[in-house]
């Protein structure tokens, strides 16, 4: 007892790195914004905010699912391909290429639900491979990373699908109280996921599995089921993101939708301070991480940094952010 008391009384001395670890991403973001105020032309406008938010949406939506997956100690490389699949399916449905539906509203609803649902099913498939056969997540999801886009391309013959369906494109172009719908969607998802991870049994179980799978199983946690659900969620998120992308572009190109998304999402998660080894995760961090990366991209573009150089800078930023995070954690 006395010792517990003693130890509690000792207040931890201020540790700059620990501080950085907690607020590092936030600080980085703030610095970036300041930099832009100073150097980027015509940065301080609503439109800038609007552009950045709308552009970061899809990454965040995917990254939320990815965070949960990574929290269980897994990873999901297939998200990009799943985006392509849902992006390819939706138009086929509401354009009536599969079965003609005359009521637009109905068609759109069906399109959204089925497309996202299918993506979810593929996510479930990932989970099944991982839970049932104990295949390492990278490989298990590599399967759909390769095959998934192929499926989307086969569905559409690789052809571009263009459309003008305001009811559908609402999720990409519409606004709620002046806020772009996709942004609202993103915020809701983030809040829901963050709350789930912090406050619910399921969230706790995800982290337990990431922390020590055997112990989790011996404590009566249905490890397999949790994994199935988590990968399904990741699939659903990818599906939604896919819809948003094609809605904005009023066209769906199975070859390109979601290209390279897995790496962007993973980078966002890592920069946000989630351990890739699992067992520790922060959704808000992921949000900040994604925004940081987005803002870096914006800054480089707006200031005319050539693509090649931009790659190098981006790499530097990622390393720096993650280094600060981890150094803080060790201190």
């Amino acid at each position: 007892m006395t010792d517990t008391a003693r130890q509690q009384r000792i207040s931890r001395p201020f540790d700059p790195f620990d501080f950085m670890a907690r607020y590092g991403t936030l600080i980085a973001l703030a610095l970036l914004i300041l930099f832009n105020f100073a150097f980027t032309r015509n940065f301080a406008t609503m439109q800038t905010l609007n552009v950045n938010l709308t552009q970061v949406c899809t990454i965040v939506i995917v990254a939320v699912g990815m965070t949960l997956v990574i929290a269980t100690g897994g990873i999901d490389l297939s998200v990009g391909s799943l985006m392509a699949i849902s992006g390819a399916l939706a138009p086929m449905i509401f354009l009536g290429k599969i079965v003609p539906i005359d009521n637009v509203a109905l068609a759109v609803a069906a399109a959204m639900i089925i497309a996202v649902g299918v993506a979810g099913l593929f996510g479930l498939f990932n989970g099944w491979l991982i839970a049932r056969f104990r295949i390492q997540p990278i490989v298990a999801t590599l399967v759909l990373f390769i095959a998934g886009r192929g499926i989307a391309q086969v569905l559409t013959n690789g052809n571009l699908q263009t459309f003008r369906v305001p009811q559908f494109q609402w999720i990409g172009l519409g606004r709620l109280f002046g806020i772009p719908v996709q942004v609202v969607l993103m915020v809701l998802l983030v809040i829901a996921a963050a709350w789930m991870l912090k406050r619910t049994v399921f969230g706790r179980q995800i982290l337990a599995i990431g922390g020590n799978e055997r112990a989790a199983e011996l404590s009566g946690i249905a490890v397999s089921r949790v994994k199935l659900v988590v990968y399904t969620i990741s699939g659903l998120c990818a599906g939604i993101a896919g819809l948003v992308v094609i809605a904005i572009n009023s066209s769906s190109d199975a070859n390109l939708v979601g290209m390279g998304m897995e790496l962007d999402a993973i980078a966002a998660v890592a920069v946000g301070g989630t351990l890739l080894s699992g067992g520790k995760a922060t959704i808000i961090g992921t949000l900040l991480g994604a925004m940081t990366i987005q803002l870096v991209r914006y800054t480089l573009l707006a200031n005319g940094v050539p693509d090649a150089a931009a790659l190098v800078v981006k790499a530097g930023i990622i390393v720096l952010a993650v280094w600060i995070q981890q150094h803080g954690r060790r201190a």
Partner: protein
Amino acid sequence: DAPPLKKKDTYKVGFAQTESNNPWRLAQTASMQEEAKKRGWQLVYTDAASSAAKQVADVNSMIAQGVDLIFLAPREEKPLIPAIKAAKNAGIPVILLDRNVDASLAKPGEDYVTFIGSNFIEEGQRVADWLVKNANGKTTIIELEGTTGSSPANDRKKGFDEVIAKNPDFKIVASQTGDFARDKGRQVAETLLQAHPDANVVYAHNDEMAMGAISAIEAAGKVPGKDILVLSIDGGKEAVQAVVDGKIAAVVECNPRFGPKAFDTAVAYAAGEKIPDKIINPDQFYDASNAKDLLSTAY
């Protein structure tokens, strides 16, 4: 000189495609396959998935299968040389489509039969020339480049920038890659328009990015065609339609329908006719003046 092709009524020919990740390539592949079917030739089709190295391996596998002739759409100018040399050694004639190879390393009529296609540099120039004539005051340019490092991106930039350089009152305020993709093109355009509010011309290296740029312009609350001129290359139906609607100011066609000409050339070559070193497609140029009439003929 190039290996001969003996006269037969049907052939087994290879078509080594670069990639299938954009409408233009798809149209090209389709055209080749239709033509083959029409003539009852057997087509060995490979897709290099945007890798020059794999394309060489693909060509080699065609050689191994002993095809009569190879249609090659080289991914790049230099790395495909070994493939062409290998085909020559195996006594298989090669016809290049839509992209040429480094002339200093392989000679038409010698290492390969001929090159059929468009001239990317010239495409860039034609767009620039049109702009110089019809700009009426719109001189601040944003350029959306194709995939960094790919030859159409490099050439279409080269041709355009050269002409612009000669006209001091025009200036390119930003030039960034949009990966030939609509979404990326849109995002880049959004950003650049935001950073350069004074820009009033957008030159995109292909239709996809042009369409992306248009939605970006509209999202920024401006009117494409009025506030901002959009220029593009490829001239697919969607783009020409956009010209009709006045959203795209001008677009150079780069026709992917290679089938007929390619196969004709092969037959002519087999018949022992003299084949020119370069066969340049006559490419359309669409703007407000002719778009409506030619819309039907656009691919």
